[in-house]
């Protein structure tokens, strides 16, 4: 590995934490390509560092989101059953795969997500009639001064998406938010801000499940991971605070483009 300045890594972590918390993701989707493609870090060390940074981002943004009452604790815990099992399975599988397969998987996942993000429409999920029973998993949120109710629909689909998100998280060092947030919002009736906050809350557990496997295998490069996580903390605190000020739509479009470009590059690197 080439010599990397801790300041560069802290800045990198800061950027990933900022964008990640802004979108309800862990930021791993940006970290892994940057570390491997731009800085020449071996892919397993990059994935391990990313998982640790994802934990930092998830924990930091959750302190902000919990305070705002945006996290749906019960829904998060139910979906965590699926993500943590997926995370464990993904982490074990990653230990057995060759680096070039990891590159290919990462590239294809990124490009696929880019296409989905680009095609997503911005429909509303909230019910203005607050007399509606939200059910055991649903909830209420305040948007400005207006209270809204939402119900959770298609729970099996949410669980399935969470399992896939967990497996991809363990395999590729992501939080998996990039899969959960769109599915929860588009198909399961969950308002985007609750979906993002609940996903951010969950990804700490998802990433923790697989991070132990990378740690046990000796893939964690301590200074690299520590510097990135150190940067991710202030970045994600800032990102979580900025989240309601930014146009979600423009962020999604930019992100879809980034995903497609980086995904293609990663897949090409696998050849």
């Amino acid at each position, binding site marked *: *590995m080439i*010599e*990397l*300045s*801790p300041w560069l*890594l802290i800045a990198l972590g800061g950027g990933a934490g900022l964008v990640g918390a802004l979108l309800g993701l862990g930021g791993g989707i940006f970290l892994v390509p940057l570390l491997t493609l731009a800085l020449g870090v*071996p892919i*397993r*060390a990059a994935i391990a560092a990313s998982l*640790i940074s994802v*934990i*930092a981002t*998830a*924990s*930091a943004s*959750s*302190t902000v989101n*919990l*305070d705002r*009452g945006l*996290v749906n*604790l*019960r829904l998060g*815990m*139910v979906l*965590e*059953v699926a993500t*943590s*099992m997926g*995370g*464990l399975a993904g*982490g*074990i599988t990653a*230990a*057995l795969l060759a680096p070039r397969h990891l590159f290919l998987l990462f590239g294809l996942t990124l490009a696929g997500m880019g296409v989905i993000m680009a095609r997503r429409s911005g429909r509303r999920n909230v019910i203005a009639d607050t007399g509606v029973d939200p059910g055991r998993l649903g909830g209420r949120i305040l948007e400005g001064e207006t209270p809204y109710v939402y119900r959770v629909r298609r729970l099996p689909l949410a669980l399935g998406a969470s399992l896939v998100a967990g497996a991809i998280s363990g395999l590729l060092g992501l939080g998996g938010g990039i899969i959960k947030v769109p599915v929860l919002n588009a198909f399961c009736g969950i308002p985007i801000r609750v979906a993002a906050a609940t996903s951010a809350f969950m990804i*700490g*557990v998802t*990433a*923790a*499940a*697989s*991070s*132990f*496997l990378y*740690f*046990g*295998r*000796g*893939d*964690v*490069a*301590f*200074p*690299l*991971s*520590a*510097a990135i*996580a*150190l940067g991710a*903390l202030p970045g994600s605190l800032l990102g979580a605070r900025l989240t309601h000020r930014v146009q979600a739509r423009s962020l999604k479009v930019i992100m879809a483009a980034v995903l497609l470009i980086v995904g293609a590059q990663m897949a090409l690197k696998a050849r």
Partner: protein
Amino acid sequence: MSGRGVRTQRGVERVIEAALAVGLLVSSSLFVVGLALGTSGPLKWGILLLMLTPVARVVILAVGLLHERDFLFGLVSLFVLGVLLSGIVVSGRLAPRPVPAPGAPERLP
């Protein structure tokens, strides 16, 4: 959800917030010390602590939900905890590498 349930949930949220903040504060302090001194000891412990923060969060939520007599969701939390703990157990015996890859672990960047 009853009024009491909402209040209890608020209490659990506060405890989780505090636990997350403490975990982040201590591990980031260890990171600063380790990076400043160029030693990997504090970095390793900081990373381990950071990895255990979500586990602590699941424990708190499980205890909070069981205390609230919400047994279904309490059991769900305990199951998640079981998955996490099994990951820790498996990690101890996962493929010890015959040859360490050059430059990957335990080296200053």
